[in-house]
C-alpha cells in the first residue's frame, strides 16, 4: 500500500460519503455539503497524484486544485443564494419539495 | 545597541544552547510560544486598563483608579473576579459547541502571532512562502467561533449577534485582504519578514520606505485599518456585541472565565491585526527615520502597536455605532470598490517604477482621488443629510 494508494482510498471514501449525503439528505444545504465533500475528494486526488506522480514539476495538480477551489467557492455562493431565494419563495428547503422543473 | 536589539534572540539561543540538539527545535518552539503567551495577554491586561482610563477621561470621569497605583492593577482584580465567577451554561444551550466557541475565538489570534515579526529576527515561525496567507487563514477561523458562540447559546440576542458578526466579518474580510494584497504585489513575497525588510530602503537620506509613504500604501493602510476595526468588532463597528441593542451579542450567555476568554480573544485579535497592519504598511519593526536606527526594533514595533491601540481607543470614545445596513453598504459599496481601485494603483506604481517619485505619487493619488470623490458625491446624493432633533 503506497502512500499514493492510501490517499486515493481516502479520497474515494470521502467522495462516497459526500455522494451518500447528496443522495440521501433532504435539506438542500446538506445536499450542498455533500457536493462540497465530493469536490474536496477530487482535490485530494489531484494533489496526491501531483505529490506522488512521476513528474511533480509542472505543478498541474496544485493548479487544478486551485481552480477547483475557486469554482467550488462560486458554486457554493450561487447555490446558497438559490437556496435562500427558494426558501424565501416556497418556504421550504427540502429537495424533493422543489419540483417546479418536473414535467 | 545591537545587543539590546537582539537581546531576546540571544537569550533564547543561550537557553537552547543548554539543550541537546534533538530537543532544540521543540524547545525553541516552546520558548517562542511561551513568550507570545506571556507578552500579549499582559499587553491585553494593560490595554484594558488604559482603555478604561482613557475612555473615562474622554467622558470626564476618572475611570478605574482604586486597585494598585492609579488603578493599574485593575486587570488583576477583574481577572480574579472572572476566574472565580460561576460558569453558567444555559439549559437550552448546545453544550459542546457552547464550550468550544471561546477556544475557537481565542486560539486563532494566538496562532497569528506566530508569523508576526515583532522585531529583527524575532518571529516564532517564518513561513517564507505563505506567511501572510497563514495569517489571513487563521484570521478567518474566528468567524466560525463567533458563530458557534452565538448559535449555541440558543438566545435570540446571541443569534442576532452571530448573524451580524458573520455578515460583518465576511464582508470586511474582502477589503482587508485586497488592501493587504497590494503590498504583496509590490514586494513580491508572502513572508511577513521579507515584507518588512522590503520597506527598509531609505528615501531622501532619512525617511524609510514604509509602504505608508506611497499612494497605494496610504490608501491601503486607511482601508486596511478601517476593515481591521470591523474585523475586530471594535466600535464603531461593534454591532455584533452592541450592548444597547442586543445586550452583548454572541457572548450574552457567557459568564466567568469563558467571558474573559472572549474578551481576551477580541483584544488578541485586535493586536494581531494591528500587528499585521504595522508589518504591511508601517514598516514593521523599522524606525520611521534611519537615524533612529539605534532604538531596538522590538521597541519600535510595540510603540507602533501602542500608538494604534490609542487610536482605536480614541475612535471608540469618539464615533457612534453604525446601523447594520450602513455597515454593509460601507463594506460593499465603498471599501470594496476602493480597494479594487487601490489594486489598480499598485499595478500602476509597479509599472511606473522608472518615473520620478513625484510623478508616480501624483498619478497614483489622482487615480485614487477621482473615484473617491465620485463615491463621496454619490453617497451625498443618495443619502440627504439627516436632521437630528436634540433635546434643548
Amino acid at each position, binding site marked *: 500500500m503506497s502512500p499514493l494508494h492510501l490517499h486515493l482510498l481516502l479520497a474515494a471514501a470521502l467522495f462516497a460519503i459526500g455522494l451518500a449525503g447528496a*443522495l*440521501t439528505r433532504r435539506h438542500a444545504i446538506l445536499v450542498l455539503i455533500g457536493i462540497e465533500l465530493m469536490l474536496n475528494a477530487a482535490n485530494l486526488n489531484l494533489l496526491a497524484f501531483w505529490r506522488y506522480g512521476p513528474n511533480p514539476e509542472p505543478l498541474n495538480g496544485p493548479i487544478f486544485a486551485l481552480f477547483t477551489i475557486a469554482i467550488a467557492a462560486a458554486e457554493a455562493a450561487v447555490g446558497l443564494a438559490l437556496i435562500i431565494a427558494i426558501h424565501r419563495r416556497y418556504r421550504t428547503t427540502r429537495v*424533493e419539495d*422543489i419540483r417546479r*422543473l*418536473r*414535467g | 545597541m545591537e545587543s539590546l536589539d537582539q537581546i531576546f534572540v540571544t537569550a533564547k539561543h543561550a537557553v537552547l544552547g543548554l539543550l541537546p540538539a534533538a530537543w532544540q527545535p521543540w524547545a525553541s518552539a516552546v520558548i517562542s510560544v511561551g513568550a507570545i503567551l506571556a507578552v500579549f495577554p499582559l499587553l491585553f491586561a494593560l490595554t484594558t486598563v488604559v482603555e478604561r482610563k482613557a475612555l473615562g477621561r474622554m467622558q470626564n470621569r476618572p475611570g478605574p483608579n482604586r486597585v494598585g497605583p492609579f488603578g493599574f492593577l485593575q486587570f488583576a482584580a477583574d481577572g480574579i473576579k472572572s476566574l472565580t465567577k460561576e460558569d453558567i451554561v444555559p439549559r437550552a444551550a448546545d453544550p459542546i459547541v457552547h464550550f468550544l466557541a471561546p477556544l475557537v475565538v481565542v486560539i486563532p489570534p494566538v496562532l497569528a502571532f506566530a508569523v508576526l515579526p515583532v522585531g529583527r529576527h524575532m518571529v516564532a515561525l517564518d513561513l517564507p512562502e505563505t506567511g501572510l496567507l497563514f495569517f489571513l487563514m487563521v484570521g478567518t477561523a474566528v468567524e466560525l467561533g463567533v458563530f458557534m458562540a452565538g448559535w449555541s447559546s440558543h438566545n435570540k440576542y446571541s443569534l442576532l449577534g452571530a448573524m451580524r458578526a458573520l455578515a460583518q466579518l465576511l464582508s470586511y474580510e474582502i477589503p482587508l485582504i485586497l488592501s493587504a494584497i497590494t503590498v504583496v504585489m509590490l514586494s513580491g513575497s508572502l513572508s511577513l519578514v521579507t515584507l518588512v525588510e522590503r520597506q527598509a530602503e531609505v528615501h531622501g537620506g532619512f525617511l524609510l520606505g514604509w509602504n505608508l509613504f506611497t499612494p497605494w500604501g496610504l490608501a491601503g493602510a486607511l482601508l486596511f485599518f478601517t476593515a481591521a476595526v470591523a474585523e475586530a468588532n471594535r466600535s464603531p463597528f461593534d454591532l455584533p456585541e452592541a450592548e444597547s441593542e442586543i445586550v452583548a451579542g454572541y457572548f450574552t450567555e457567557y459568564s466567568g472565565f469563558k467571558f474573559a476568554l472572549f474578551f481576551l480573544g477580541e483584544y488578541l485579535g485586535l493586536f494581531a491585526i494591528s500587528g499585521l497592519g504595522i508589518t504591511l504598511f508601517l514598516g514593521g519593526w523599522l524606525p520611521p527615520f534611519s537615524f533612529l536606527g539605534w532604538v531596538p526594533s522590538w521597541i519600535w514595533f510595540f510603540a507602533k502597536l501602542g500608538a494604534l491601540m490609542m487610536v482605536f481607543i480614541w475612535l471608540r470614545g469618539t464615533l457612534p455605532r453604525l446601523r447594520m445596513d450602513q455597515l454593509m453598504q460601507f463594506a460593499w459599496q465603498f471599501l470594496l470598490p476602493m480597494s479594487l481601485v487601490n489594486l489598480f494603483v499598485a499595478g500602476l506604481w509597479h509599472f511606473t517604477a522608472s518615473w520620478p517619485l513625484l510623478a508616480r505619487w501624483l498619478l497614483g493619488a489622482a487615480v485614487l482621488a477621482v473615484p473617491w470623490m465620485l463615491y463621496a458625491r454619490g453617497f451625498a446624493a443618495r443619502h440627504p443629510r439627516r436632521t437630528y432633533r436634540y433635546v434643548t
Partner: protein
Amino acid sequence: MDLFPRHLWLIPALPLAAAGIGSLLGPSRRRLAGMLAVAAMALAALLSLAAFAGTVTRETAGEASVAVHNFGWFEAGSLLVSIGWILDPLSAAMLLMITTVGTLIFLFSIGYMADDERAHRFFTFLSFFAAAMLGLVMANSLLLLFVCWELVGLASYLLIGFWFTRPAAAAAARKAFLTTRIGDLGLLLGMLWLYAETGTLLFFDDGRGCLESDMLAGLAGRLTASGLGVSAAISLLILCGAIGKSGQVPLHVWLPDAMEGPTPVSALIHAATMVAAGVFLMARVYPLAALDGTADVLRVALTVLTWVGAITALSGALTAVAQYDIKRILAYSTVSQLGFMMMGIGAGGPAVGMMHLLTHAGFKALLFLGAGSVIHGCHHEQDIRQLGGLRTRMRLTFATYAVGMMALSGVPLFFSGFWSKDAIVHSLEGWPGGKLPFVIALGTAALTAFYMTRQMIYVFAGPARSPGAAAAHESPPVMTGPLVMLAVATIGLSAITTPFVPWLEHFLTSSLGKGDSPGHANWGVLLLSGTISLAGIALGGWVYRRVPGGRATDRDPLGIRFPRLFDVLERRFYVDELYAATVVRWTQLAGWLAASLDRWISSALHDAAALAASAGAWLTRTLDQGVINATFDDGCEAARDSGRILSRAHDGRAQQYLRILVVGVAVLLFLLWNLQGT
C-alpha cells in the same frame, strides 16, 4: 481580384455589424436602426457587385470561374475542421440578388414598420438574417453552410413570430421551426455521411474538395446495401433539408402560415431568399446529385428532385386558386414556383433552376411588397374579398403589382419570369424521365396565370368592397420606390434571360455543369407556354368577370361552380389535418412507449403514479383522437403533452437525476477499466 474571395466575409460582416449595433439601440432610436440596416445592406450590395463583376471578368477571360479561400476553423486532436468562402458564378449571382433585393426590402420596411415601436428589433433580426443568408450563400463548406442554414432558420423563426403577442404568429413561428427541423435532420445526416465518405466538407479545395472530380470519381462506384448509389443516398438526404427549407411537398405546410410575419419578412425570407436556400443547396451539390449513372441512365436523386418539384408546383398552384388571404395566395404561388425551380434543377440542371430562382426572387419580392403596400394602405386588411377598387387609389402599387403579376404568370417577351420559367419548360420537354412533368409544368403555368388574374381582379378591379379599402391611400415613396425599382429590374432581367441572349444561363452553367436536357430555344414550346399563360389569364378574367360588381360576402365563382373541389382546395388538401391526426397518434405512441421504458429506472411509488398518469393521459388523448384537430399546432400540442408523459419519469427530483447519473458513470467506469484490463 485580391480583395475577393479572401475578404468575401466583409459582405455578411456588414449586416452582422448592423445587427449588433441595432441590438444595442433602444426603441427611441428605431429609425436610426433602420437607416443603419439599409446602409449596411447597400454597402454589402456594392461589395457583392464588385465580387460579381470580378467573377464575370474572370469568367469572360476564361479563367477558372471558381475562386475559394479556405482556412482552418478549429482543430480537435487529429481532426482539423476547415471552412472557407467560395466565389463562383452561383454564389456571386446569389450574393448580388440577396443584397440588392434585401436593400430594397429594408428600405420598404422603414416605411412599413414606421409605426411599430419594436422596429429596431425588427431591423436587428432582419440584418441578422441577411448576414446568415449571405454566409450561407458564400460558404465553401457544407459545415459552414449548415451553420448558416440553422442561423437562417432561427432568424426566420424570430421574424415570423415578430408579433409574438398574436397567438397565430407564435404558433406559425413554432410550426415553421419544427417543420424545417425535420428536413434539417436529413441534411445533417447527409452531411455526416458525406464527411464519412470523403473526409472533407469543403466543396472546392483545389482538387480535394468533395464536389471535385477526384472525390466524385472515388464516390462514383460505391453503392449502399439497397443498391442505391452512395452519392444518390447522400444527396437524397440533403434533399430532405432542401425540401424542408424550400417548402416542398410534404413539408410545405409551414410556409403559408409563415405569412403571419410582417410582410417585408414574407417578401425577403419567405419569397426571395431563405426559401430559395433549398434550391440553392441543390444547385450547389448538383455534381454530387448528378453523380451516379451517366447522362443516358436516369439519375435517382435528380428524378426524385424533379418529381418532388412537379408535385409541389401543381399542388401549390391548385391551393393558391382557392385562397382569400392576399399573402397566402402569394405564399402558395411561392411554393409552386419553388417546385418549378426544383424541376428546373432536376431536369435542366442548376443553371436553369437558378435562373428562375433569381428572376423569381425579383418579381416575387415585388409582389409581396406590393401586397404589403396594399395591406399598409388598407389598414391591415388582407382578405381579398374585402379589398377591391385599388386600381384608382393606389396607382403606382397597381402598376408595379401588375408587372410582377405578369412576370409570375409568364406573359411573354418582356418579363423575366416568362423566360426563366420557359427555360424550365424547355428542359422538361426534353427530359428523358418522361413527359408527365412537362404536362404538369404547363398546367401549373396556366393555373398560375389564372389565380394571379383572380387576385388582381379581386384586389384592384371594380369598386371597393369594404370601408378599409375605400379609405385606402397610396403608400409613401419610401415604400413605392422599391416597388418601382423591382419592377424595372423584373423587366430588365428579361433581357439577359432569353434563350436568344442566354448570357445568364451560360454564366451560371460555366461553373455548375449542364443538366440532363438543357433548354434550348424551341419555337413550339415557346409558343405553347406563352399561349397557355395568356389563356390562363383570359380564363381568369372570364371566370371572375362578375367579381368587381359583387359584394364582399359573395362566394367565389369557382366555388359556386365546383363547391366540393373548391372546398378541398380551400382546406389545402387537408394536409394539415392529416398531419395533425398522424402526428398526434405517433407522438402519443412514442411518449407512451418512452414512459413505459423509463418506468423500471425510478422507484416503485411514483412509477405507479407515472403509469396511472401516462395511461390516463393516453386514454384521454386517444379519446379526443376521434375529433380531428383543425391545425398542425395541435400536433405541437400533442408533442408537448406526450413530452409531459415522458417527463413523468424525471419528476424534478434532483436526487433522482443524481442517482441515475452516478449509476451510469459507475457502469461506464467499470466497463472502461475492464476494457483497459483486457
